[in-house]
């Protein structure tokens, strides 16, 4: 392998990265230590801005919500995604067709998702179908305003987010399943392994690299790209304020871009900690690393 080749290959990517990601990140970092209202850069605040953000109880609550949300969503996306992938890999009639159908939520416009789930989870009195179904099957005592009461709102939003992305993780796992050598299954069957044992012995190990990436992607998405779903369902109210929505308000409602940037970088630090810990722990499973 010649030495210049890889860098040549990396050039387009690194240019994109440099101009549209690294540069803004650096600029944003600089802004996060200033007072900035979006137009005029104000005075230097230094780390005092970060300290002010960290001791703000509203921010602390948003951070807590972000973490809870991320844990639920990451586990949910991957478990459901894997289950769906297995389900549609079976020789059942219609399984192939199901693959397309199950991916639909990923393709849906967030406005559709927001509108549907808002109507679906409403109080029965105002047209909420889910509460209606609960009452009809005798579980009426569970009925409540899922998206507008502080106890259930965050979890409801998390469930919608899981619903939305499960299809994507299903596809990821599917592509991974399809690259597992079928001879390994034949060998296992010859050895007398049942379906469940084949799953543990062949499928799961074969999926390790994909699982690793899938969890990583889910983690990033849950922390960093969950703005749409929270915003459209609750606007960040009813105790669903996560760091992303909190940051958005800080920037666009209150014009405190410096503070918002600081919040973003604090979130980044949290994610980096979790992310790198995860990557370091999983070093052994990355094929070819």
């Amino acid at each position, binding site marked *: 392998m010649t030495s210049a080749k890889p860098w040549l290959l990396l050039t387009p990517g690194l240019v994109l990265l440099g101009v549209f990601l690294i540069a803004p990140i650096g600029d944003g970092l600089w802004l996060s230590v200033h007072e900035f209202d979006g137009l005029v850069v104000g005075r230097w605040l230094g780390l005092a801005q970060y300290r002010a953000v960290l001791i703000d109880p509203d921010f602390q609550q948003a951070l807590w919500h972000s973490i809870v949300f991320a844990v639920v969503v990451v586990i949910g996306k991957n478990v459901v995604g894997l289950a769906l992938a297995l389900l549609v890999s079976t020789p059942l009639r219609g399984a192939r067709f199901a693959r397309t159908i199950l991916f639909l939520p990923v393709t849906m416009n967030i406005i559709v998702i927001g509108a549907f789930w808002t109507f679906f989870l409403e109080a029965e009195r105002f047209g909420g179908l889910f509460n209606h179904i609960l009452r009809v099957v005798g579980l009426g005592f569970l009925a409540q305003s899922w998206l507008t009461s502080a106890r259930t709102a965050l979890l409801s939003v998390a469930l919608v987010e899981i619903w939305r992305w499960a299809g994507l993780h299903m596809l990821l796992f599917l592509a991974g399943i399809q690259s597992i050598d079928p001879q390994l299954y034949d060998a296992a069957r010859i050895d007398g392994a049942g379906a469940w044992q084949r799953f543990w012995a062949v499928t799961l190990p074969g999926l390790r690299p994909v699982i690793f990436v899938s969890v990583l992607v889910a983690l990033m998405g849950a922390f960093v790209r969950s703005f749409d779903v929270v915003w459209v369902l609750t606007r960040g109210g009813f105790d669903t304020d996560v760091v992303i929505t909190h940051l958005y308000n800080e920037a*666009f409602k209150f014009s405190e871009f410096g503070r918002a940037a600081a919040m973003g970088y604090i979130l980044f630090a949290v994610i980096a900690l979790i992310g790198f810990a995860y990557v370091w722990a999983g070093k052994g499973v990355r094929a070819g690393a």
Partner: protein
Amino acid sequence: MSAGGTPRHTVITRAAFVAMTLLLALSSAAQADQRLVIFGPSSWDTFAPGAPEPVISTVTASLDAGFRRQHPEVTQIIHDSRGTVAEGLARLRNAQFAGEQVDVIICAANRVNTSFAARGLILPVDDLIARLGDRFSVGAVGNFTLRGRVWAVPLSAVNVTTFFYNKGLFQRAGLAAPRTYAEFLAAAPRLRQLGVIPVVHQGKNAWMWPIYYMSALAQTTGNQPVAETEAILSGKARFTDPASLQALRLTRRWVTDGLLDPQSNELDEDAMKSVFYSGRAAAFFSDSWDVADVAVTAPFPWGVFEFPQYSGVPGHSSAFGGAESGLCLSSTSRQPALAADYIAFAAGAAQAAQLLAPLASPATSHREVPGAADPVSLTLRSYLPAVKFLDWMWPLELTDTIQRQVQDMMGGTVTPEQAAARMQAKYDGMVASGFRYQP
């Protein structure tokens, strides 16, 4: 397989894309002749807001034609009012930051008071006000005055907070419009017997909750809500003081007494109105800017009544509101003199009458343009003079907290005491981080 070289079709495709981009860039280059841009941060910020689209187009076109007759050097007047109210500030700021041409801004009083002036997005217009003379209604100019300077020329309806109610349902329950809270409370069981929710609210829109708190505060402070707010913001009073706390408790009682639907937080404006129009709820508290919609859509006789009088409070019931929008001068305008002329023209005698006529509001910002004369408008006019909205004085972050706290309180997840404590904690935190109130 081809060794090396990119296939021709890819090269052509890439060239095509580059060409297309260049074309797009070129086509958006500014024109050389003189244009004026009238910017509306949201789609509500137009002339004659609330009127049907064709009416807005007509009055705007005739205004522009009149102005261009006076200023023949102006080749084009562009009106750009799009987007939601919530995105308005961001839209304006982004446009100015991007270096787009923004000359005149149709600005809401709320925004002028809370953000535009403080953030340097607009210029003071004291000289324009002087130029236009003494034609404005009482309090109109005051609505746009901050720290001694005027930041917009008023040109709008005067709107007030009010209850809307279904006259048909009230009649069937044998009731008249209530004047006091006690009356309303006594009437509630009869409404519920009809299977009707007495009062419903667009609880999902957190920004509409504080009007309940404000209306109560007016009464608990002996009609000094503005003074009380100034005291709180100067640190001389607190949200947890008796007057404010009682206002919160009285507001919460609407739900616990069975008047206000406990699941109001599920409803946005549209849903709330649909519940009202379908006769499932008998009344809602909002602002007179909704009159146009109710008049057109309500399939039953309807009316308005002022916020009821609580008992055991020093003050009497009062409405909040005033002249709510005007014309501002953008701080990034490269032709401020021309922009000022446009504002003066639009707010001048002849034009103002034309622009304000379609509004059919209880009153207008201009003395010489009277409000409508129908019974509803006359009732609404009787509420005047209205008190300035308190959220024009609260800093934005505090407003956000107050909205959320009242919303949560009415949803039952926090008590009035907790809500008051959190509002105060938020303000204390802001002060600790360096916020100073400038009256």
